[in-house]
């Protein structure tokens, strides 16, 4: 018996308005380009290619689409679900309700079937006879094994090819354009022509079977649109890895941990293509570390010696990096740490989504330590803020955390193409030997311009006065060990000043306001998609207009204060139990503003959905 049934979890989330998005079965009414498909399989069964082909075929039909892999922390054997959402309105958050089930996993298919709303459709293995459980769901039983055997003589490949049968069945039932499916499949298998041929035969077998045997009993269909032209599909980790390539990152040291692993792997893949010179030599170094302690140590060592360096990790790794993070803050060393957040505490839910490392990262380490956090809200921002993180780390001379999450990082998202960086790389206040000679020396931690940011030299700078002593012990302006109370206070006060200077450089929040609403919503990161959709639901279904501010960084900027001040009630929407972003806001806001804050939280491990946000808001508003 599966213990992590996502279908059941989704069905059991409750909510007074859940049926609002449930499509009523009707043989007349057609529901076009607005539904979700859930494919239930067994982890390790190789369904990823089939799911990807289905997703990209819909994309090629010009229909806005998103895909989410809801998977267990397991290599093979446990149930896994992939959801695809087609949305003519461009909503890409997870949809709470499942409209079409493709049931391929014997361990869960009964539960999967039971959790469907009335009027849904189900494609399933014939022998499962799922019709016995529901008479209010459109049923399409398919003899998968028989069809697979007919197109795939090689027995050991059948497990994989079987998945393509459902692509064909779905293509027929959803009225998909086969001219969009074939190129999507051929691209998926790239140069493996034989594999592509075999899989295409399976798709056709499924299509033909559905044509010959099924009468359409559900309303869900796809029709070509023109909403995806010029758009790309990419996951947030690949986008961030690509960002590192264009940020001029030269050193990466990391320890594999879900869900951050694919970020560094993407960096490696892109860097091997685009950062190797004609003589075959690399302009980057990537080292797999023995643990996260070493990863962050190397990031700081490299940052100190002049490299743009980064690591990527998730919650447990963040915990291990705590001591070094404080050293980086106090010794003022640039470095970039990607935290692709997952469900905590402890090992928690390694393959589930949360935004629950905010407080840990903001104050990571002992003593008075505080950090800069950048929070991408889309794959495009994963790319852009990766670049910005390196800029800020060197401008401020401090570690910078990029707070992504599993939903953003590991799932495929449709996006506008990324823009080439519009400003040249700036390495911050680094003194050359010539500048040193001219100045007659320097004091590493002296504030010369009121920003709190001192000048630094890099190891190897060829001047007798270039060297200084980097340490985690207290020090004076000249980096000399000092426990004098005045030296200590002066130094840490300067760090506060520097943090305030950093505030002025932070990416500004995105604000959507009509100027008349009394209610303001605040969200960030991957909660943005559900929040946008929820705002539309609130307007259309409840006549409730809201303004919206999406945070992109911590420390907060002036805009946040203005937004809170100009609204009566503020709902902070986030994916953690303890309302962590709201806690950070409380620290910054005046007491009369703090009382305006209300919390909408979603932390069951599934990506947040609009309906849950809407229901919670409506309840709290007493509508």
């Amino acid at each position, binding site marked *: 018996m599966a213990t992590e049934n996502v279908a059941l979890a989704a069905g059991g989330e409750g909510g007074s308005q859940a049926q609002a998005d449930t499509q009523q079965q009707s043989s007349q009414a057609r529901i076009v380009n607005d539904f979700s498909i859930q494919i239930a399989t067994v982890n390790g069964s190789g369904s990823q290619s089939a799911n990807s082909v289905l997703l990209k075929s819909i994309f090629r039909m010009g229909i806005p689409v998103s895909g989410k892999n809801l998977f267990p922390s397991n290599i093979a054997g446990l149930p896994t679900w992939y959801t695809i959402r087609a949305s003519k309105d461009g909503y890409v958050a997870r949809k709470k309700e499942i409209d079409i089930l493709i049931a391929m996993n014997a361990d869960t298919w009964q539960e999967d079937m039971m959790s469907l709303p009335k009027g849904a459709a189900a494609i399933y293995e014939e022998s499962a006879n799922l019709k016995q459980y529901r008479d209010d769901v459109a049923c399409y039983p398919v003899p998968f094994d028989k069809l697979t055997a007919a197109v795939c003589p090689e027995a050991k490949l059948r497990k994989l090819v079987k998945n393509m049968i459902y692509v064909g069945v779905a293509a027929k039932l959803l009225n998909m354009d086969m001219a969009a499916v074939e190129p999507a499949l051929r691209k998926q298998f790239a140069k493996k022509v034989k594999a592509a041929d075999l899989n295409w035969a399976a798709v056709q077998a499924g299509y033909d079977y559905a044509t010959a045997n099924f009468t359409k009993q559900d309303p869900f269909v796809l029709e070509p649109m023109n909403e995806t032209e*010029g758009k*790309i*599909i990419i996951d947030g980790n690949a986008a961030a890895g690509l960002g590192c390539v*264009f940020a*001029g*990152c*030269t*050193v990466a*040291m990391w320890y594999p941990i879900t869900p951050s692993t694919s970020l560094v792997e993407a960096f490696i893949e892109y860097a091997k293509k*685009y*950062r190797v*010179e004609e003589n*075959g*030599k*690399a*302009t*980057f*170094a990537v*080292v797999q*570390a*023995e*643990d996260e*302690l*070493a*990863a*962050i*140590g*190397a*990031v*700081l*060592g*490299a940052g*100190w*010696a*002049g*490299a*743009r*360096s980064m690591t990527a990790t998730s919650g447990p790794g963040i915990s291990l990096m705590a001591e*070094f993070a404080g*050293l980086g803050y106090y010794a003022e060393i640039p470095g970039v740490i990607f935290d692709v957040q997952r469900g905590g505490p402890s090992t928690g839910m390694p393959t589930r989504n949360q935004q629950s490392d905010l407080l840990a990262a903001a104050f990571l380490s002992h003593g008075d330590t505080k950090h800069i956090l950048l929070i991408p809200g889309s794959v495009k921002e994963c790319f852009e803020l990766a670049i910005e993180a390196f800029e800020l780390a060197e401008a401020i001379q401090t570690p910078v955390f990029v707070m992504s999450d599993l939903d953003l990082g590991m799932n495929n998202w449709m996006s506008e*193409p990324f823009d*080439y960086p519009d400003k*040249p*790389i700036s390495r911050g206040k680094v003194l050359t030997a010539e500048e040193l000679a001219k100045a007659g020396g320097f004091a590493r931690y002296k504030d010369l311009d009121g920003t709190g940011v001192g000048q630094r*030299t*890099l*190891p*190897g*700078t*060829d*001047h*007798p006065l*270039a*060297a*200084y*002593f*980097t*340490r*985690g012990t207290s020090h004076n302006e000249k980096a000399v*060990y000092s426990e004098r109370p005045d030296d200590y206070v002066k130094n840490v006060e300067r760090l506060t000043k520097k943090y305030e200077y950093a505030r002025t450089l932070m990416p500004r929040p995105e604000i959507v306001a009509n100027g008349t609403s009394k209610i303001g919503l605040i969200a960030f990161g991957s909660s943005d998609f559900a929040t946008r959709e929820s705002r539309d639901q609130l307007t259309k279904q409840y006549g409730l207009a809201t303004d919206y501010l999406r945070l992109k960084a911590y420390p907060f900027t002036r805009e946040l204060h203005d937004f809170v001040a100009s609204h009566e009630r503020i709902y902070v929407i986030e994916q953690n139990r303890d309302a962590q972003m709201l806690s950070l806001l409380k620290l910054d806001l005046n007491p009369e503003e703090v009382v305006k804050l209300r919390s909408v939280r979603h932390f069951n491990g599934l990506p947040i959905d609009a309906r849950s946000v809407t229901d919670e808001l409506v309840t709290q508003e007493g509508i």
Partner: protein
Amino acid sequence: MATTPVIPTPDAPRAVKTNRIGLQVLDYRGGKTTLCAGCGHNAISERIIDAFYEMGVQPERVMKLSGIGCSSKSPAYFMNRSFSFNSVHGRMPSVATGALLANQTMKALGVSGDGDTASIGMGQFVHMIRRNLPIIYIIEDNGVYGLTKGQFSATADIGSKLKTGVVNDLPAIDTCSLAIQLGATFVGRSFSGDKKQLLAMLKAAIAHNGTVVLDVISPCVTFNDHEGSTRSYKYMQEHDEPISELGFVPHFQEIDVEYDPGTTVNVQMHDGSHLRLRKLHEDYDPTDRVKAVSSLMSAHEGGEVLTGVFFVDPKKPSFTELLNLVDEPLGTLPESRTRPGKAVLDSVMQQLM
């Protein structure tokens, strides 16, 4: 080019002694030590100064890295003109790794202690060795934690006594045997009180490219120099057993001394220097890991502290060489070499459509 020593005469003005790059020994000095008078670490700092001065290494080309503890404070007491990073407890190897990735043209000198290495830092110590990171890693080994007032460290010998009478009932970790097994390419042990041996070993270490592990017995005069200690000056004077006698001919000096291949092993170092190891033990072979570990274990069983160069392999590529990096330091490459052009991004975008 050898430096001819100038012998001052009473009537001639005293000529300033300089090394082959024209620097005085003063240029290699550091701040005033805050360690205890008589601490072995201070003697090691002196030898480091001598070695880098005599080898004529430009101080600005050196990175000094350390962890936490008495030993790790010592980089403040030598070579002020070198770049220094006093990091966190036991994790200097990772900082050094990052720094060398950013700039593989620098010479890295790590100073650690027995607690910093063999307890809290064991994880990073072994992985640094496994990678053959090009660093001189010195363990200033006194068998106790000094800054916290004298607890045993993991290199303390079984049966040795604290001042309070507490007896160590756990076996010592032999950092040298471990280093040899894990692939370190230069492993030796010395004693802070043996000026000649330590200096020669440090000079050879400078000539090496790869991980050098030097375990230097360095008595703690405050917490571990008493009767019953196996890290005291007295114990070392009685039990120091050199496995070989070291001679070092730097690459910039002409070789003018013959040696007998029957009694002396000649090792040509990475930079062209020569390390001459005159055998004091019958089966000494510094190119054989198995023999080296075996000698260490037998000596330990016999209650002797074996010193000298136990193993050396000047040919194995260092970690930074394995990475096939561009010749210039990665950290300071210009934007034109670290940010691909717009056409590259456009083509990546095209592939994602």
